[in-house]
């Protein structure tokens, strides 16, 4: 059992790719699988900042939203190709992250959470008010990607399975990138900052610059999730920017296990699946999700994946 887990964590990119490749077959329907893919990526981007560096942002919906809206606006209003539109979404989210990060990293702790939440609201209002571009309250409609050619082979984007694997392609690139970041010296500095910021600074690391860099990276990944979501839904709802959406990233990370590689994906899968099941019984799924979340905060702060890992760790030590 233990050695399997070690094998998985050694080849985590390959493992997650293989798992995600068969994932749609074990889900009740493809749209849910795509949703989990996208929100898993969103939570992973968020977890880079929260789980690995200890900065609890409540404004990450801003990057999901910026990615979605810029991609959508590019396609709807400027007739861009979907590839270019994704690129613009990601770059836009990164620039947004640079600005928000610049302001937010001046503060610490709980203050940071409050500032990011408030800054996220700015982005919400900006897109809400720019009605001619974004559709305001109704959201941006008509983000259509029908079919296109890859190396001369026609691809039908409206086929859910095809859509899943195209989105998976981008998600895998992002997962690979995140894995590389975490294994690099930057990843080590991030964890040093999480454990003790003053000590990291004393060791000669530029704490402020690392924070900003990770903030931007995290924003770009969440922006990619947003771009993919716009392509998936064909519309961009204004809810994408809502602070409850930021809260979803937080909840998914906690539920799955913050600061673990697979945790956010596990969290996203559990939460969206739960949401899906609960909605068939009652429309008040928020209460159920809220209660489950509170239960985890109180009794399993390490989350599902984190608890499994630490159980195995204990097992290993006692041997």
């Amino acid at each position, binding site marked *: 059992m233990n050695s399997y887990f070690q094998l998985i964590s050694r080849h985590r990119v390959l493992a997650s790719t293989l798992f995600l490749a068969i994932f749609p077959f074990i889900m009740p329907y493809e749209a849910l699988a795509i949703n989990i893919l996208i929100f898993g990526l969103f939570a992973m981007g968020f977890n880079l900042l929260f789980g690995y560096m200890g900065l*609890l942002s409540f404004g990450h919906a801003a990057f999901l939203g910026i990615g979605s809206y810029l991609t959508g606006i590019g396609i709807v209003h400027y007739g861009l190709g979907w590839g270019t539109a994704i690129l613009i979404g990601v770059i836009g989210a990164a620039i947004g992250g640079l600005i928000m990060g610049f*302001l937010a990293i*001046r*503060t*610490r*702790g*709980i*203050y940071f*959470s*409050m*500032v990011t*939440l*408030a*800054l*996220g*609201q*700015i982005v919400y*209002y*900006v897109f809400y*008010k720019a009605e001619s571009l974004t559709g305001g309250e109704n959201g941006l409609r008509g983000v259509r990607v029908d079919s296109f050619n890859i190396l001369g082979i026609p691809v039908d984007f409206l086929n859910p399975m095809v859509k899943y694997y195209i989105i998976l392609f981008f998600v895998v690139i992002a997962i690979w990138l995140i894995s590389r970041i975490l294994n690099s010296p930057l990843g080590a500095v991030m964890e040093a900052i999480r454990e003790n910021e003053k000590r990291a600074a004393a060791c000669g690391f530029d704490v402020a610059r690392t924070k900003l860099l990770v903030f931007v990276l995290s924003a770009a990944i969440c922006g990619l999730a947003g771009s993919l979501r716009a392509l998936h839904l064909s519309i961009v709802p204004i809810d994408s920017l*809502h*602070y*409850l959406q930021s*809260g979803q990233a*937080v*909840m998914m990370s*906690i539920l799955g296990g913050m600061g673990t590689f697979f945790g956010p994906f596990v969290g996203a899968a559990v939460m969206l699946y739960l949401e899906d099941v609960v909605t068939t019984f009652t429309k*008040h799924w*928020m*209460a159920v*999700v*809220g*209660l489950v*979340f*509170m239960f985890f*905060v*109180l009794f399993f*702060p390490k989350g599902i994946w984190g608890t499994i890992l630490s159980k195995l760790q204990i097992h290993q030590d006692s041997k």
Partner: protein
Amino acid sequence: MQLLTGIALGSIYALLALGLCLIFGMLNVVNFAHGAFFMVGAFLGVYFLGITGNFWFSLVLTPLLTGCLGLVTERFLVRPLYGRGLDYPLLLTFGLSYVLIEVMRVTFGIEGLPSITPDGLSGTVNVGIGFFPKYRLFLIAATALIILGVWFLIQKTRYGLIIKAGAADQEIVKVLGVDIAKVWLLVFGLGCAIAGLSGILASPTRSVNPEMGIPILAESFVVTVVGGMGSPVGAVVAGLLVGVVYSMTSLFFPDLAELSIFVLMAVVLLIRPQGLFGKAGAMG
């Protein structure tokens, strides 16, 4: 005239931020459910006003109930999380706000309730420079009274002395024989009662629906950040400032009203990251 409107709006912000600040200053907990308590207060207030027709009665009963809700929250949900870092109580109260929103949706429906202005306080009154809604004047007076009350409690009573001492050094206070857990419990309850009170006070001026606590939470965070975390004076001054900035912008640039207060926050952060009245290094 617009200045008065701003002050009326700002007094609600000041009250909310004061509640947040009380809890934070003492317990080191940011109550993410503060907006939800505000919303619950508004619902209960309008509900009691509807069945009894007596505004003063519901003005007393509502904060009592939200205060009790706060006591239960602290005792059973927040207390197990002390010593586990600052993020956990914050996350827990965030989850709680989800639940409270849904509970209100189940109880009162998603549309919310029509807001009622109490009989004696509807209409306008001449304030010398023009006509001004009576209710808003009452709002300003009532918040001023509450803020004075809290100030009196903290500055002039033995209880306030314990609160201040506990915020400064809880170990010493414990050694001196004060049951600090009880003080924390009461402070949390008081903060939630104030949130509920702001809810009922604000209810005639805005629509009462389950989501009403969400934007106000972000706005009261802005107030707290501008004022400086943990500073009651900062909370009040920044609350009024934010209210005035909001209503001034909505007079001249209506489209930018919501944005203006966040821009204010950004400017304050750039110049004084610790907030107007915050102590440097007091940001955790």
